[in-house]
């Protein structure tokens, strides 16, 4: 079985919101209708989005780190939002695991949004139906697009390649390898929703350096007397090792 999903690499996300704007642009222009906004330039703007980038500060000054955190529907493998829908408008596709809303069936009762612990669903205040990320289902299968563009708009827009798209059920896919080898994790595992989207954690590059590695103990210039003589008393690595 296929389960399409996004992998978001928090190590590379710079919080530029390119995925947010490209998502909005693509999804407000499609045949499924607009994503409505109110007062976009006014005092109290509000609007419907599939994707948001949030920022968190970890730690206390001066030991802080900023984590930019893109969040959209995680296409849970056990989505609590689907069984609660009274009309069947919310469903999970068998063939690729994408969770979708049928805008023609949705009555706008908001119950599914209560049943999503991640706040991934937003009611469109003008179309009065529930909206959420579709994984760009209207472009990933579009054969009129060049093959490398058959990916979600956010993935194409990301300048740092923090967003990867693929089948998390195929153990050899790029995304599965990333999850496996780079510590991919799911959000709020406590609710058993088993999100398909995974996040890759911050990964620090660290090496351990010992003091005598910082000083070039066997500097030939010292031996030749053009530099001050050796300061280290003990034998150095070069003195005791036969390379």
């Amino acid at each position: 079985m296929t389960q399409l999903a996004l992998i978001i690499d928090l190590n590379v996300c710079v919080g530029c919101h390119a995925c947010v704007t490209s998502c909005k642009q693509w999804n407000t222009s499609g045949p499924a209708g607009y994503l409505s906004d109110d007062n976009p330039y006014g005092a109290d703007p509000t609007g419907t989005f599939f994707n948001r980038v949030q920022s968190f500060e970890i730690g206390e000054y001066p030991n802080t780190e900023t984590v930019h955190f893109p969040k959209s529907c995680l296409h849970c493998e056990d989505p609590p939002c689907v069984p609660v829908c009274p009309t069947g408008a919310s469903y999970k596709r068998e063939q690729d695991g994408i969770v979708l809303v049928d805008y023609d069936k949705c009555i706008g009762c908001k119950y599914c949004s209560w049943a999503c612990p991640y706040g991934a669903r937003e009611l469109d205040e003008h179309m009065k139906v529930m909206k959420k990320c579709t994984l760009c289902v209207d472009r990933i299968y579009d054969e009129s697009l060049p093959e490398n563009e058959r990916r979600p708009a956010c993935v194409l827009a990301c300048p740092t390649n923090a967003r990867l798209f693929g089948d998390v059920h195929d153990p050899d896919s790029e995304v599965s390898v990333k999850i496996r080898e780079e510590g991919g994790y799911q959000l709020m595992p406590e609710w058993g929703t088993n999100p398909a989207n995974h996040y890759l954690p911050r990964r620090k590059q660290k090496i351990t350096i010992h003091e005598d590695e910082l000083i070039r103990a066997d500097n030939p210039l010292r031996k030749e007397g053009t530099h001050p003589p050796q300061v280290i008393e003990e034998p150095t690595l070069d003195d005791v090792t036969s390379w």
Partner: protein
Amino acid sequence: MHPAFSVIFLTTLIGVGQGLFLALFTAQSYAAVGFISIDNPRLFYSVGSLLSLGFLIAGLFASFFHLGHPERAWRSAARWRTSWLSREVIALPVMMGIVFIYGLMHYMGWNPNIIGASNPLQGQLTLFVGILGTIVAFTLFLCTGMIYACIKFLQEWHTPLTVINYILLGTASGFMFATLYAAYMAPNLVTMYGTWTIIITLVALVTRVWALIRNARIKHRSSLQTAIGVRHTGIVQKSMGMMGGSFNTREYFHGTSPEFFNLMKWSFLVLVFPAALILLWLGLESETNGHYNTKLLALAFAVQYAGLVAERWFFFAQAKHPQNLYYQTVG
């Protein structure tokens, strides 16, 4: 959660309707075994059923204001296998239908003895319909309560107490209304109804306070740590990703001050329980020559109903949705 008035009125109004039906059937079953006698049963049951139906219809009407597309409401019966909301959508019209038939049968006198005329139990067909209606009334309470109780991460709701309180509070208000109704139609039933109202209200007080205590002690399982998956005790949101509001900032927060929130809690605790019970008691005591002070009884019902509206408001406002963790800082 943000308390929506449509849902507050839906749940409280159908609660009265269901409770009133249960009260009517209680009287009929008492009368069937000869505990009580009703002077004009035909009118008593049919007008009572009509009033119960009125409450149910008013609740249904309120619920339409909750929907973005009320014209598609019929679709919501589709997923009864998985969705408690869908089950409620089916149970509510069934309840209305049974209340209507029950009232009509009494009014028309369609009441053959289906298990034999020699049986001491008379009026068997309506008794049978009444039992069916009782089952449906409890099913409807169950569906309404489970809509909230089944969402496991809304931990304030995820308890059997939610269903129990919907049953008890709805039934209490229905019996309260029945007491008032009986004061006009069958004064000899007022004591019986009044006593039941007091008993049910007191039991509801215990279970509702129990739920309050439980919720005050809740340890929420989700935290910022699990929400973004970073293992650090000091995580602060600096930006929720937008400067304005969104559905996420409107739907899941009650948006009132802690003082108002507490005021609502104490209002319902006072209005639903002691205030309503004292008024009811005074109403019951006001009997002179078989006549009651209906103003007092009406006031008792009104006070309790107002309290239930506050109770429902508080029920929603108290539930903390885990998505709120993602929406803490405008930026």
